């Protein structure tokens, strides 16, 4: 394992994917990663094999009509809207045909260097409606993580070397720019932080327009590209990804361990 870890470091830095992609199906995780030694918030894309860590300004997560649901009458879910109102919910549990975004602190270098936990903060949201992120556990009482109607910044802690999924909700169609930052104290006593914009598109429209929307934060400086090793891959079987060309990053395979996939069939 040690040798593998060393190899992982050796193949880093990863090349950022140059071409924008839209992901509307499969597993992805938001998380910090050391890119060229620099703490960077990226998106780990497990729809490729091996996984690809993407710069946030090259990727859009799309909640298509498959993610559309009606707000239930249960008072516990009133924060989502009026009962019966149609909203987009990207669920905590994977559903076939809907992107499954989680967040993790499992990049090997991150997991080794971070002291206890990463602070994930939402610094602002721009979009046509309300964004919320909440968790659901045993008895269905929702636990809010973020809510764009509340004052910013909003914070949550992510224990080091963990991987979590939640429910991402959007109540109007269009582009949402989530201004996110991840901050941590490292075991050597220093602190690291990075702030980026996550692009999400709710609806069946052209999600690529989300990338054309100006980014509200000036801090999201793209990491300079090193010459990437380009790879030609087959068209994705599910046909969900719009962009068919991308650069394969050789690393990241080690952290595949806790990646989850869809449950196809349920108990009758």
């Amino acid at each position, binding site marked *: *394992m*040690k040798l593998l*870890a060393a190899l992982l470091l050796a193949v880093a830095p990863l090349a950022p994917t140059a071409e924008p992609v839209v992901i509307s199906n499969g597993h992805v995780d938001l998380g910090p990663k050391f890119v060229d030694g620099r703490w960077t918030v990226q998106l780990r894309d497990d729809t490729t094999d091996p996984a690809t860590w993407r710069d946030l300004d090259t990727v859009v997560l799309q909640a298509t009509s498959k993610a559309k*649901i009606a707000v*239930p009458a*249960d008072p*516990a*879910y009133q924060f989502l809207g009026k009962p019966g109102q149609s909203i987009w*919910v990207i*669920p*905590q*549990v*994977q559903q076939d045909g809907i992107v499954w975004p989680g967040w993790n602190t499992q990049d*090997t270098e991150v*997991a*080794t260097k971070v002291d*206890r*936990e990463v*602070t994930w903060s939402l610094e602002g949201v721009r979009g046509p409606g309300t964004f919320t992120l909440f*968790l*659901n*556990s*045993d*008895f*269905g*009482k*929702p*636990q809010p993580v973020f809510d764009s109607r509340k004052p910013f910044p909003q*914070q*949550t*802690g992510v*224990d*080091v*070397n*963990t991987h*979590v*999924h*939640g*429910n991402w909700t959007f109540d109007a169609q269009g582009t949402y720019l989530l201004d996110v930052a991840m*901050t941590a*104290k490292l075991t050597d*006593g220093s*602190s690291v932080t990075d702030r980026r914009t996550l692009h999400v598109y709710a609806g069946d429209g052209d999600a690529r327009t989300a990338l054309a929307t100006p980014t509200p934060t000036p801090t999201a400086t793209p990491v300079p590209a090193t010459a990437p090793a380009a790879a030609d891959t087959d068209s994705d*079987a599910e046909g969900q990804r719009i962009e068919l060309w991308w650069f394969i990053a050789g690393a990241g395979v080690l952290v595949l*361990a*806790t*990646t*989850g*996939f*869809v*449950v*196809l*069939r*349920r*108990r*009758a």
Partner: protein
Amino acid sequence: MRRAIAAALTLTLLTGCTSTAASSDGKLNVVTTTEILADLVQQVGGERVTATSLVPPGGDPHSYEPTPADAKRVAKADVTFTNHLLLEPQSLIKTIDANAAKDAPNVSLAEAAESYGAHVIPLVENIGLDVLWLGLRVRGTGKQRGATRTSSVQLAATKLDGPGQLVAYLTESLGQPDRYFDSTDGLDKSDSTTLPPAAHTHLNWAFTKPGVYHLTLTGSLDNNDGKLQPLGEGTFTFAVGVDPHSVKPVSGGKATVLGEGHTDLTVDLDSGQVNAFSDAKKVGAAQSQVPAADVVIDVPNKALVAIPDDPRFSFLGKAGSQIHQLPQAVLGKHVHGEIDPHLWEDVANAKAYVQLMRDTLISQDPDGKQTYEANTKTYLSKLDELDEYVRTTLATIPADRRQLITTHDAFGYLASAYEMTVAGFVVPNPAQEPSVEQVRKLSDTIRNLRVPAVFTEPNLAQRASVLIQVARDQGVQVCSLYGDTFDDKARTYVDMMRHNADELKRCLGDHR
């Protein structure tokens, strides 16, 4: 972040401050919040230092309200030490921060001691989430069995024995439960689920009664050719509400007890084996894979919950009745950014405090450098002996009896350093009132574990009434442990820790 800045500021003060002592008796005047901290400072300072605490003997630091006299004492102090991290109430911390002289170091020990090697543990907010995170998984490619990415694997619950029922279910986004395995209506074809290769999912695992359960899982491969190819089966053992160390796995051999972290009950497509696949405990270490027959899964009394009054969950039993349940998601287990403040219950952490105190005193009184260094050296070796004493004493207690039930959550470090288990407490923080639910849970915990003793803290007499009542009802011995303060029997840190070790051995180590 705020904490990091505060710690940095403290270090700046340490290095930047060299004004000399100026108290009336010529000694360095050190004020601490608690008696434990004052004792540690006195050991380091010896004759050159007068160390006193703001919280009076026997007082509870969690709820102590500062007086105007305290503000004056702080203003006159050459050095102040707080533990911080929510041990002391905000009003006490504010009094110190507002009144401490500008050139007097004001050190928050718990946070700054990390750079001296203190081991800190995050504060557990929801003890019910501080349990094993258990899921289902398929591993391997199954190539030699003809599996492709469109194949799927069926995992079926084929046999369950135990004192009650098991329901493994998933709660979906809007609170809708989806049952995977449910023994309440017997186990049949419907008690199965299908996962693609290399998949995993999390579930709630609910048990209706405490005791030992055996669950057999059977895996089959579906290559879309109309027939199921049998893989293997395995039988897992669950210790529900009972001490897992007292339970034998199916193999009858040595058990691998799984009680924390993330584990999936797994079928391996290549070997056909059914096993428990766990995340590495340490970063960089290998994940572990233990055959089902060697596994004992700990479903502790921390996992007791009341069934909600919600018809969607009526399959679990009557609303309000208690079940043991490992939850499908464990985020929210820790309070973001908060650390358990009771560091000194691990002697190694007291050593870190002492070294930080030494350097702080030297910064304020450089002439005393040699004395402080010599005193510290002597005291550190005393603490090494103490650590060894606590360790060897507690090691004599059989593993299945190392259960701590206390008045408040002050013994996480003791448990972590000396291999004890925090089985329960009345309330997390003594400033809180216990709810009916908490008292019931405590009661069930004592009954299910058949613990020989529970532990009160001398300074928390009022809080102890609940625990003493519950213990009397069940005929369980009531013993005492020092948490945050001394009393007239224990006047030093070393006395207090020796008492704790002796008392634990006396009350837990002997006959049940």
